[in-house]
């Protein structure tokens, strides 16, 4: 299978699958280690809380498999957060694929969670951002975030700036939901279907 969506046991798997189908690509939602290993591209979606997502991955026996992938991988929302070393949410360990920790978003005077359409800024030169412009909107819903770091591809501001997108080698992450971000999200997913690691 060319595109595989890792069954993280979270609730939004179907939406991500439908978004890939809208781009004309078949895909498979799976927790089968061999299928994931041999996929051309791997999507790691997630919603909810980091501890329960990590617990699911442990139960499904997927931790080692996900840590060893060499093909393009895209973590979405919570799926991006668990790519990192640790999360403040439930003091939970992550996959440790990218250096850095996930912290509670300091929203200052703004309501929390950060929910709605917000703008992308300071875009890096990266194939996933092909056709995306500074100020384009994508859809966020989260209360933890990855601070801006050396892997940040795009920033968003909500009380404080945080990483809207990250990349380390073959591993990308989006804090927002590309499957729910209209044309902009579709463009980012289409770019992911083209990248080579």
């Amino acid at each position, binding site marked *: 299978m060319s595109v595989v969506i890792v069954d993280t046991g979270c609730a939004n798997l179907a939406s991500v699958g439908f978004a890939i189908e809208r781009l004309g690509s078949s895909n498979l939602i799976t927790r089968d280690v061999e299928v994931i290993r041999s996929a051309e591209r791997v999507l790691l979606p997630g919603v909810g809380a980091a501890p329960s997502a990590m617990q699911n991955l442990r139960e499904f026996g997927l931790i080692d498999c996900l840590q060893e992938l060499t093909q393009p991988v895209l973590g979405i929302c919570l799926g991006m957060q668990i790519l990192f070393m640790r999360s403040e949410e439930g003091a939970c360990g992550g996959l440790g694929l990218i250096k850095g920790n996930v912290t509670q978003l300091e929203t200052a005077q703004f309501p929390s969670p950060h929910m*709605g359409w917000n703008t992308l800024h300071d875009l890096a030169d990266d194939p996933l951002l092909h056709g995306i412009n500074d100020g384009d909107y994508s859809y966020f819903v989260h209360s933890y975030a990855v601070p801006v770091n050396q892997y940040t591809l795009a920033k968003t501001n909500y009380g404080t700036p945080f990483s809207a997108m990250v990349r380390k080698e073959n591993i990308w992450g989006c804090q927002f939901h590309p499957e729910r*971000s209209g044309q902009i999200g579709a463009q980012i997913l289409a770019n992911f279907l083209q990248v080579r690691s």
Partner: protein
Amino acid sequence: MLARRIIPCLDVRDGKVVKGVQFRNHEIVGDIVELALRYRQAGADELVFYDITASVDGRAVQSHWIRKVSEVLDIPFCVAGGITSVELARERLEAGADKISINTPALQRPELINELVAAFGRQCIVVGIDSFVDDAGFWVKSHTGAPAQTRETGRTTLDWLVEATKRGAGEIVLNCMNQDGVKNGYDLPQLIAARKVCPVPLIASGGAGEISHFEQVFKQANVDGALAASVFHKKTIAIPALKSRLKATGIEVRL
């Protein structure tokens, strides 16, 4: 910057989108998927589907059309109606809904909010509040899907709002019933009072009749989103015109 959200609300009954005035006399306005796509094309930021008779009929909003909507829609959407348990919520989220909104079931058993938040996270749990104003204050009503079955809960709106957020609700939709369908504008005093005590995103509902009403509710009540139904269904207000007007008055919107 975070954009203020414009949220068309589609009341659903027997698989069709309907609209009544003050929750009465429902008329069919169209097919769910067709209307969802039309609003998405027009620039809606999010959609809400309320199965308005689910609680009254003792059943939950149906998963089969949630799946159909999720297949075609690339903006977020929320579903509501008769979701009384974690299992019923799970089926609807797995079918592709981004958020679920609970109203009457939360009033009947407030712990439901905590259970849903524990299972799915607060980001996808919305509490809808139907609030009625009289001389004594703002009061919560339940079972508003059918006028004959609508009940007083004895709860005051602001106390219930605060309790719901303490139990973990990630967003509040405050529907001001006196205003619903009458197009006189959002209930600004009530929404201003709600904003002061609401730590999570707050969505205004009930009363939109013209573009200036949206401008007022964002500027005066500082809500995160404004929900409306009839002005969009009847094409009194076109979303692109609404959004450019809001942008011109300095309100952050996604164009």
